[in-house]
């Protein structure tokens, strides 16, 4: 009897509560601002087809593979196609997905989708992003299932993970200039830098105590560097220049995953790159 009650409680507690979408209602939307959110959030970098280039990256057909300790995740089709993609969703369902990691059917998404960072997004940005989404091309490529073995293929268990790890407070509590606020918003929310640059524990949760302290590369080779001030000793202008061009202060050139990141940062205003640099330098 006690065990059944415990199981029922566990089932309830790991369940899916969709987002309260009343704050989203009745807002004007700006697809041009949505495009900036789209670029900063890196949606196309993961959800475009493998090897897509240029404008083809706006076709969010899915198919890229992301290896991890838990299996290989395959990015789904999130183009505005009504059947193969998310074209039939409402704004509320989109917000639930992005900020809470919940599907319209109430299933948990795996945190390979960085909703642990996106949960910090401003509601207006979500509204603008959804407006921009409607302008993207629809694609009929079917999504492929993830290659994730037992027990990680039990989506309900992600509910436990969410209880353990989702934290809607900022990591860096103090951001007392507009530039630092913007830098924090870009790093902790949209550009989700922490998802790669922060070490994780055995269950894959970010170790916020060592925020941006570096981590092994999930594909197994090499390390993702620490961005903390003791380790990243570049000047703010050098950080901003790297995010624009990929050139380090010694004029080595970035490779690997940072290429996609820099491609996005290069399209943002210079003030955004400077804000990220300022935030990194202000880390304790």
């Amino acid at each position, binding site marked *: 009897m006690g065990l059944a009650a415990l199981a029922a409680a566990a089932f309830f507690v790991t369940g899916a509560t969709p987002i309260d979408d009343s704050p989203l209602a009745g807002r004007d939307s700006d697809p041009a601002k949505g495009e900036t959110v789209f670029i900063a959030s890196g949606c196309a970098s993961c959800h475009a087809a493998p090897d897509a280039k240029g404008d083809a990256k706006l076709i969010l057909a899915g198919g890229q593979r992301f290896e991890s300790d838990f299996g290989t995740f395959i990015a789904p089709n999130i183009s505005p196609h009504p059947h193969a993609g998310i074209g039939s969703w409402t704004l509320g369902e989109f917000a639930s997905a992005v900020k809470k990691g919940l599907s319209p059917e109430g299933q948990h998404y795996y945190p390979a989708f960085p909703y642990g960072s996106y949960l910090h997004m401003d509601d207006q940005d979500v509204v603008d992003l959804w407006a921009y989404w409607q302008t993207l091309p629809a694609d009929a490529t079917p999504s492929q299932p993830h290659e994730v073995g037992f027990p990680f293929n039990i989506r309900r268990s992600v509910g436990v993970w969410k209880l353990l790890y989702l934290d809607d407070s900022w990591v860096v509590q103090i951001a007392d200039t507009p530039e630092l606020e913007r830098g924090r918003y870009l790093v902790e929310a949209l550009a989700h830098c922490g998802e790669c640059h922060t070490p994780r524990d055995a269950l894959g949760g970010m170790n916020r105590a060592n925020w941006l302290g570096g981590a092994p*590369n999930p594909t197994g080779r*090499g390390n993702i560097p620490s961005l903390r001030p003791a380790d990243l000793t570049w000047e703010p202008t050098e950080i901003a*220049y790297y995010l624009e*061009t990929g*050139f380090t202060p010694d*004029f080595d*050139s970035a*490779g690997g995953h940072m290429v996609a990141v820099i491609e996005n940062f290069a399209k943002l205003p210079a003030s955004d790159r400077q804000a990220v640099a300022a935030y990194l330098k202000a880390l304790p």
Partner: protein
Amino acid sequence: MKKHLTFAVAFAALACGTAAYAQSDFSGQLKARQGQFRIMAINLGIIGDMAQGKSEYNAEAAQAAANTLVAVSMIQQAPMWPAGSDNMATEGTRAQPNIWEQNDDFLAKWGDFGTAAKAIQAAAAGGVEGLGPVMGQVGGACKACHDTYRAPAN
């Protein structure tokens, strides 16, 4: 008997020769190709520092650096990338095996560096404002190749 001895000696010489060839290290080729990237970095730095305002713009110095980049882009790559000098087969390189598996694409990306270098060459003496965009172009060429063909640093 003499014929067998000759044959045996000839065979032994061939075998030793083959073995010596298979064990040749690629340190010369590795130094050469890594050196070419260092020359690129030094000359990109001359122009990039001007573009960022870290150093005074100097048209002659910028032109000389750009001319050097074009000169590097004309270096024949094939002799420096012998089969077996990838990071799975030898030490001291970040060159991935796909350079050889997708060699046409690799050489095409090397060609893209040349195109970007010529753009810098055309803009170098025309004032500091023109340097930013062409540095961006060459940065894109560097990243495109490193994205696929260079292993992580550690």
